[in-house]
């Protein structure tokens, strides 16, 4: 018990990291599909929406959990981060709002407004992806002001939007068939290259802005352990590229593979970031332990989380099971 008490901040940082990873993968594919809707006609759009309709709401809840854990477990970090990111947060919320309501309005509103709501859906998805990437960039830069830092954050915005588009395309490969799936393969190939460029850019810039990270990456013997992450990432990119060159296949048995590959890619990128920034929660300013709130409150939450998270995992799995296979038309009856 004492061991847990002493390490509660680390446990909560882990829980928070897990929610954020779940969020970027799960809402990542939603937002990616939303961005890709720009390339589809009305009937393709309906099918694209059908692949994410039953899931998007629960996917977005991981963001509420992640930000909630930051607020609850690390109030000091929450205040620092959200004050620094006040405007991009507001823009992200605008994007998420437009995306979320357009989901409903695009089919329920009067016909003459439906295209406008489609555009709101696409624009909202893109805005949310760009601002989230921008915030990630600002975070990596330790919130330093400056032209280069801004440029880097903007580039990170496009990088994350590309990554969301990639995971969205692989989701469409898994959940669609026919011409839409053929198009999704092409989208996946293009966005995979953009994602690769984004990850390389972030990986090159990160050690340059922080001498601490530079030391952590390139000092001996750390470099041996750390080298496995870029090596595995590189191998994954190559395998995904080769696999996507051979898609779509006649049978649909392997349609889920690119999506699983995208999940692995996100996880590796996330591990790389976590490794670089640990033990800081606000880069170079605040450590996980220094930012943590009182132990007794964290205990209460941990007990609840241990009890409830298995249920959440269970019924989430049930929902994916119910809507397994290729997406069908969304009907209320």
């Amino acid at each position, binding site marked *: 018990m004492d061991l847990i008490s002493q390490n509660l901040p680390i446990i909560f940082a882990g829980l928070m990291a897990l929610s954020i990873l779940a969020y970027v993968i799960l809402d990542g594919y939603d937002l990616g599909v939303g961005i890709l809707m720009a390339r589809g006609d009305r009937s393709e759009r309906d099918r694209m929406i059908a692949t994410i309709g039953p899931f998007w709401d629960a996917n977005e*809840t991981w963001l*509420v959990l992640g930000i*909630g854990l930051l607020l609850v477990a690390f109030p000091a970090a929450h205040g620092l981060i959200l004050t620094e990111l006040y*405007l991009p*947060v507001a823009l992200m919320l605008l994007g998420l709002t437009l995306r979320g309501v357009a*989901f409903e309005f695009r089919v329920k509103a009067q016909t003459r407004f439906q295209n406008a709501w489609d555009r709101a859906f696409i624009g909202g998805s893109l805005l949310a992806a760009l601002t989230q990437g921008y915030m990630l960039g600002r975070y990596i830069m330790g919130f330093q002001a400056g032209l280069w830092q801004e440029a880097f954050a903007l580039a990170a915005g496009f990088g994350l939007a590309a990554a969301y588009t990639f995971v969205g395309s692989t989701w469409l490969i898994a959940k669609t068939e026919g011409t839409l799936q053929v198009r999704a393969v092409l989208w996946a190939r293009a966005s995979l290259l953009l994602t690769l460029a984004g990850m390389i850019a972030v990986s090159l810039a990160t050690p340059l802005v922080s001498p601490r990270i530079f030391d952590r990456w390139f000092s001996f013997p750390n470099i041996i352990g750390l080298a496995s992450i870029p090596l595995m990432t590189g191998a994954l990119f190559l395998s995904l590229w080769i696999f996507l060159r051979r898609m779509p296949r006649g049978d649909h048995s392997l349609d889920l593979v690119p999506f699983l590959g995208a999940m692995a890619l996100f996880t590796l990128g996330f591990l790389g970031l976590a490794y670089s920034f640990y033990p800081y929660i606000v880069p170079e300013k605040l450590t996980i332990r220094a930012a943590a709130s009182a132990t007794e409150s964290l205990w209460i*939450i941990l007990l609840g989380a241990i009890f409830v998270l298995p249920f959440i995992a269970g019924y989430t799995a049930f929902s994916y099971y119910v*809507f397994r296979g290729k997406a069908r038309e969304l009907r209320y009856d």
Partner: protein
Amino acid sequence: MDPILLARIQFGANISFHILFPTITIALGWVLLFFKLRFNATGNEAWMNAYRFWVKVFALSFALGVVSGITMSFQFGTNWPGFMERVGNIAGPLLAYEVLTAFFLEATFLGIMLFGFRRVPGWAHTLATFLVAFGTTMSAFWILVLNSWMHTPAGFEMREGVAHATDWMAIIFNPSMPYRLGHMLLASGLTCAFLIAGLSAWRWLRQDRSEDVRLALRVGIWLAAALIPVQILVGDLHGLNTLEHQPAKVAAMEGNWETRGNVPLVLFGVPNERERRNDYAIEIPNGASLILKHEAEGVVPGLNDFIGKHPPVAPVFYAFRIMVGMGMAMLALSWLGAFLLWRKGEIPRLVAWAFVAMTFSGWVATLAGWYVTEIGRQPWLVTGVLTTAQAASAVPAGMIGTTLALYLAIYAVLMVAYISVLFHLAKKAGGAGPAAPPAYAPRLQPAE
């Protein structure tokens, strides 16, 4: 402009917009479950058609509640960082439990409830409907626990300026929680009942004679008629509880300046905070004493006992009258409607139009009630522990103003879109004839 005032307007605008939608969905979830159970029991397709129409309204309202709720989860931090610093040890776990026990549940089963009708057995679809209704109610429970704790904090101690929990049962079952929760759940029931009655009456007036319209209209009117007297009783108990714990708020609601006996009930007036009296007051002698103390001589606390520590009088005073007035109108109309249904089996056109006019009366009453209780808490954020000014952030006024303008613009658009789409759906439903092909019917027949 004062950044604290801007932050309050921004948060107030967002939370006011947000509360409209949960107020509908909390009760509508249970009404949908009722429709589904009636269909399971009777096999009458009209109940399922009512379900199909109202589940669309549910989905739309839910989406608006979700997106404005996410905005709120960020604004806790951006607008009130001092809140979490001071009372985060209590607010944090309550919010975390809301996410863990309510948000995931409702969001996940919503997918099955909306789109799973042909994919899961009938009982599983009914169960999904129940879990969504249960989830929305759990969410209301946790957030009202936190809100009530902010009004009547209990079960904690202050150490080095930070609140630490000492008794979680006392925190959860704090003195005002049962009244506030009951009052809010009933407000949700009434809002939903008048929405159903109003929109169904509108369809009926447009010559939509579908069986499901008739059923929904009856459910709406009977539900409203049954809930409104309970709400008046619970509201009265809530008021007495507030008198005990937050007397300054009750003094502002009543517009009573001096602590004394034989206090009249001010039906209407213009509170004049500078002169500390009411202008143009229309009063019922001994009314306030009778309501609050149940005797004519009962001593009612006055605002002058709390100079500098009581809320702004006018907004609380007016909002209270709007809420009570709306409640009286709801009582009159719903009982008239229920009486006519009982005696004649239908309502005349004029009464139907009155229900259409009252479609969103629940929103007006709910918002007015929230303004009474939340403005009535000022200058405190957490009574006796933390003032609103202490919790405010250092974000510059210009930035708050810019984002406020952004939020207000988007909320205005969404509000217009929401209301027009509700009526558009109602119109479309009437024109479509029999709602769905019966191809899937065999699986859905209730067990013999």
